[in-house]
């Protein structure tokens, strides 16, 4: 259960090369899990963004910038809880930093084709809600 209210919305920052087809599609690479070097767990980093407006979400991604050389994120996409593939993955609400969650459970999907499929599904769902930051694009 989220401490930030319901229904939950998970937002993921986007790099320029992950946004395709005139800003209507997210590349599946955006949702390919990476291995956490400390825990060795595969995860996709997101933030809970329910009840926030676009400016507040932008602020979260700017403060918690994870792109190299301080490149600013140029967009984010979102997955509403109702569309989340909860039967396939789960959420680790670690809230470190604030509102941060990890999409976990990738260990069930060891093969590349399985992970590509789940990532493609997440990318397709999130393509419905892409917010481009005009000032950074």
């Amino acid at each position, binding site marked *: 259960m989220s401490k930030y209210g319901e229904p939950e919305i998970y937002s993921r920052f986007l790099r320029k090369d992950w946004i395709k087809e005139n800003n209507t599609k997210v590349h599946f690479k955006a949702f390919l899990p990476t291995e956490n070097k400390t825990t060795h767990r595969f995860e996709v980093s997101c933030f809970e963004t329910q009840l926030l407006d676009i400016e507040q979400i932008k602020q979260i991604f700017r403060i918690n910038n994870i792109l190299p050389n301080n490149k600013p994120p140029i967009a984010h996409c979102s997955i509403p809880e109702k569309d989340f593939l909860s039967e396939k993955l789960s959420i680790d609400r670690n809230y470190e930093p604030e509102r941060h969650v990890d999409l976990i459970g990738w260990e069930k999907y060891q093969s590349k*084709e399985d992970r590509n*499929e789940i990532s493609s599904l997440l990318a397709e769902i999130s393509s419905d809600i892409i917010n481009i930051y005009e000032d950074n694009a």
Partner: protein
Amino acid sequence: MSLRTEYSMNTLQSSSYLDNEKAKTVGNFPNNPFVTYSSKNILITQLYESAKNKAMDYCIELIEMNGDTNIGSMTDSLCSNFNYSWEVLQKFLEYFDYRFFETLKPNIDVDDDGEIIFEWYGRKSVRVNLTFGIHGELYLVSLFHGTSLKLKQFINQFSINLIKSQLIQLLNDKVA
């Protein structure tokens, strides 16, 4: 940039594809007199340039994120995988009608392992992606209005036909 990393980048730039005589002799489509060997070679060159640029961007990103020290093995591995993946892609193009790629231009990318990815988009809920694995395997994922299909298969008649059918399905949906 360390010497080793620079070497890796140079390896990407001087892949053997230009010397590969095989690439110059495939692509014979006798039913279409307007299709020449050279048009296929142009396409191969364009695909290679796009994929190589993506791989180099990723190498640079790795260096930016991890620093220049101890990065050599990561970039070496990426470059080596990229070159194997490129060989698989070339092999694929010996059997697959390359004119599909003129009608449906793939979005080209490289994954964290250095493997080349093609992705095509249709309307809402429609996409196909294809990864050229370093051991000769193809990874296909096709999403089509709520149904999903995935495949790991070597290059053979079955995989070629399946990929073709998924791209035709995507194309038909796009123009419907």
